[in-house]
């Protein structure tokens, strides 16, 4: 394509930040419009890249490489340590880029619920978008790490400043957990970099693949790095028992932030495990497959059981996220095409579904000031359309066919049943439990007798239609026509399967 396409894509939200600098603080509507508009270039560019890829043009043309940092003593080491600024995408990261761009735009719309300091909010929001886009476009571990950290800081402030009652606590536990995770990740990256002299992902993959006699890294070393990497990304995903920060964040942050958080930031964990864990250490990953599958089932059931006893709808959704991330792990643990594809599908699908559900939570929290299920009820009477979307979202989440949740759940279990039928059968209980807790929560909110008068409460406003409809539309599209995802994924999957020798 053309020069620096990906760089422009990744850094386009910065334009918005610059534009916002010149907008006076008090002009709410101007700030919101600018913030929304600034998410559009990335959306347009990523969709263009997606459709061009679908129409057969290769993704390699998008790769960018510029020398960036060089250091070291050439006399002693023979060559310089060099870190290159490398951007590039494969099918998987392209999908994640599109997902990020879409969710960012929608979350920008959902930011209408922000009540104060819009300017600071949108600046951080756009910076967060840069970080997320960069994470998926980086072809270099160090660059990846930098973008990864860029997501961390705006998120911290977005949670801590614009959230609900216990926002500071949530923000701090977010920072502590993710900070520790990042530290572990940094160690892994540094060890890899020091041992191999490169931080390019493809180069690392091929170096370690050729390293059968353990010249670069001992077997134990590789295993240790993989486990460290799993912990680092496991915090993000989150894997039981590293999840409690995430519950707090989901409950305390404002809806638009949670949309991005649940939709994209958690998925960085899955992305990392698939791209780096599985990509760089395929053999060690195979040894850990059973453990990962077991963790997946534990996540699935643990989240589901806990979601069952929550009274706050946001808590239900938070635990449901944990439960659904279990399916990602189940798919990865299966280590066959069906499983991995299912895991990737689940990543995308849960991103959309969680965004939809949290957006709807925001919609009725805005109007009723509560998300506590016993205080709600009969919402379908006052807000039939919102209730309808909520029900649709819940159906998508519990894996109703025709929606994206089913395809991913189905493939993940299809994969696991081949490798570990008994474990999969235990995990299948989670499918029932998912239905139980989601129906309990959603019906508790929308059905039944109304506890209060809904006089003066408006149903979805025009601007609120957009995110709900777009998200549901994509969810149904993926559910009905999964090829929109499978086709771009083909080559990525082939590479992974080659790595694990399956």
């Amino acid at each position, binding site marked *: 394509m053309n020069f620096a396409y990906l760089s422009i894509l990744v850094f386009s939200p910065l334009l918005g930040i610059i534009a916002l600098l010149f907008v006076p603080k008090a002009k709410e509507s101007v700030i919101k419009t600018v913030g929304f508009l600034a998410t559009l270039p990335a959306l347009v560019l990523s969709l263009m890249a997606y459709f061009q890829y679908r129409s057969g043009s290769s993704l390699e043309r998008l790769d960018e490489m510029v020398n960036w940092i060089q250091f070291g003593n050439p006399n002693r080491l023979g060559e310089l340590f060099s870190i290159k600024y490398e951007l590039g995408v494969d099918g998987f990261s392209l999908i994640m880029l599109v997902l990020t761009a879409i969710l960012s735009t929608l979350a920008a719309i959902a930011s209408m619920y922000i009540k104060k300091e819009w300017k600071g909010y949108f600046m951080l929001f756009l910076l967060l978008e840069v970080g997320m886009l960069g994470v998926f476009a980086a072809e270099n571990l160090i660059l990846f790490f930098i973008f990864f950290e860029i997501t961390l800081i705006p998120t911290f402030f977005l949670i801590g400043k614009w959230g609900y009652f216990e926002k500071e606590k949530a923000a701090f536990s977010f920072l502590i957990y993710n900070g520790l995770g990042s530290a572990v990740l940094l160690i892994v990256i540094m060890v890899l970099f020091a041992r191999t002299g490169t931080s390019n992902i493809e180069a690392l993959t091929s170096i370690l693949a050729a390293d059968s006699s353990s010249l670069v890294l001992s077997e134990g070393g590789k295993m240790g790095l993989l486990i460290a990497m799993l912990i680092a990304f496991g915090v993000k995903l989150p894997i039981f028992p590293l999840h409690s920060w995430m519950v707090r964040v989901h409950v305390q942050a404002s809806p638009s932030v949670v949309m991005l958080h649940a939709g994209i930031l958690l998925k960085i964990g899955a992305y990392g495990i698939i791209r780096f864990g599985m990509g760089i250490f395929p053999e060690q990953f195979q040894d850990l497959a059973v453990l990962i599958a077991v963790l997946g089932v534990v996540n699935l059931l643990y989240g589901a*059981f806990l979601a069952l006893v929550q009274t706050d709808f946001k808590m239900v959704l938070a635990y449901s996220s944990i439960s659904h991330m279990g399916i990602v792990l189940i798919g990865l643990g299966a280590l066959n095409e069906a499983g991995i594809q299912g895991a990737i599908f689940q990543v995308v699908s849960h991103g959309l579904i969680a965004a939809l559900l949290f957006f709807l939570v925001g919609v009725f929290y805005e109007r009723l000031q509560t998300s506590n299920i016993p205080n709600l009820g009969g919402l379908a009477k006052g807000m039939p359309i919102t209730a309808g979307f909520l029900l649709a979202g819940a159906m998508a989440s519990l894996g109703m066919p*025709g929606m994206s949740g089913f395809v991913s759940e189905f493939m993940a*279990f299809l994969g696991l049943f081949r490798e570990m039928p008994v474990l999969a059968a235990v995990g299948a209980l989670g499918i029932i439990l998912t239905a139980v807790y989601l129906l309990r929560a959603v019906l508790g909110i929308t*059905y039944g007798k109304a506890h209060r008068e809904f006089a003066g409460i408006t149903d979805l406003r025009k601007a609120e239609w957009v995110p709900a409809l777009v998200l549901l539309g994509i969810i149904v599209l993926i559910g009905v026509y999964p*090829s929109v995802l499978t086709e771009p994924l083909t080559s990525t999957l082939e590479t992974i399967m080659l790595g694990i020798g399956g």
Partner: protein
Amino acid sequence: MENAWIIPLFPLLSFLFLIFFGKRLKEASAYIGILLSLASFVYSLLVLFERFTSPTHKAESVWLTIGDVQLTAGFEVNQLNALMLVIVSLVSFLVHTYSKGYMHGDERFHVYYAYLGLFTFAMLGLVLSPNLLQTYIFWELVGLGSFLLIGFYFYKEEAKKAAKKAFIMTRIGDVGLLIGMILLFWQVGSFEYDEIFAAVEAGAVSSTMITLTAILIFIGAVGKSGQFPLHTWLPDAMEGPTPVSALIHAATMVAAGVYLVASLFPLFTASETALMTVAIIGAFTAIFAASIGLVQKDIKRVLAYSTVSQLGYMMLALGSAGYVAGVFHLMTHAFFKALLFLAAGSVIHAVHTQDIEKMGGLWKKLRVTGPLFLIGTLAISGVPLFSGFFSKDEILIAAWAHGNTVLFWLAVIAAFFTAFYMFRLFFMVFSGESRSDMKHVKESPSVMTVPMMVLAILAVVAGYVNTPWFGTFLGDWLTEGNPALGHGHIEGPSWIMIVATVVSLLGIFLAWLIYSKRSLSRDWLGASTLYTILYNKYYIDELYELTVLKVTKGLSLILRFIETFIVEGIVKGVSGAVSGLGHLGSRFQSGQIQRYGAVAFVGLAILIVVFAVTGGYLK
């Protein structure tokens, strides 16, 4: 026939159109729903006629690629599908029409029609599916439609509970189906019915695997068809509007379980254990539900238990290798049970209550509904010359011929029960004294009665497509070219027919004695323990409440304990460590530069000394 895929699209169109624009159309939504369902009925009829002459048609395209495996989606028109298409679209069309009268005045009228469209779409899609995966997809969608319609009166607490229960109970079954299906997939490498049958026939699948998968798939059918022990949702589902009960919980969706077993019949026949399971569950459900039906007081609940019992009958038929008998009964049952429900709806529409104790003497007031209800009752009771008689007879013969003597007699007793409680219902509603508070009882409008009449005609004549006297046309056609399905007609001793007739007449007579002539006291059973047990449906709900729910709840609470004390404990530990470190560090931040300087200098001095003593690291 190549365009059979259009059939489900009509109701889908209706769903989409009404959900988006229905609000403006108000009650005119009904015309859209009716027209589009009529379209699919007409088309189905054309397909059926075409199917008489041409062979099975199947068309597929790739839906999902997983590595080298390609999962396909498409449609197939074989005998069973074509027949089911007609049944489903016909009942759906009639219910659409009937609802226009029944739902008149409801403020969510268009939503109701939209949901009906969604359900019909899913059901037709289910019928057309050529593979297990697609079946599962529509299977779930059908459940969704059912869930939405049961919960249509969402503001009623009971409706909410019933909807939830229906969804979850069927989901339990669905998971069984899912597991069975996936296991089968890894054995066979395909979800296609043809390939599964071919593999089973070729012996590529071990017999334990066949039994296991067949039983797992049967669990799915158990959930959907309300078989014991997952039957409790079906009576509760009567909280939905009555036409919905007629469409979903009598004629189509609940029969999907039977349909599923019928579609996978070759798989089941390959395993004697699986067949036996199906038969035993079926027979047990038949008599079990019938016994509960004996004492219920809600008109719709009686019909619901009767549905459960009749579905048990169908399962028994299939379990006894009576493929034709099962499908045949499915068809006749669809007609007469839909008729009964619609008639019951008409009664409820007229008297605004569902409690049969409060009804009575309606025969004179509902001059159209009464006779129609009677026809349905006669048909289900197995009175000769009505459709139910022939199909029930087939089942009994199949059970006898398969050697299930015990099950056979269970079925006979169930038939007796059926006749008894149906006529109990009939007599309590229509005969006897008219109640004083029911003065303004009016017959339903013709938009409601006409569909009932159509069903009544079918309830009478549908049996004649497969009779021992005039030829077994249906059976021959269904099994044509497919020996795996068994023979078109199973010969059985002729005394079975006589026994069945006698038994049902006996039931009717007894009901007449008790509830119409009142020569036997109605309270003969009233106070006994047996009555209480039956009235409380064997306390199955309570049992589940005590076991499954309690266990789940307990487990959740234990896990919550772990969450709050152990996992949060880790969090507290981590954050405590971090903030402790912070406090420690902040002690050094006294703000006194001199101290900073001292610390920095001592650090430097140590480094320098180390450097001087060791001679440096970079020597």
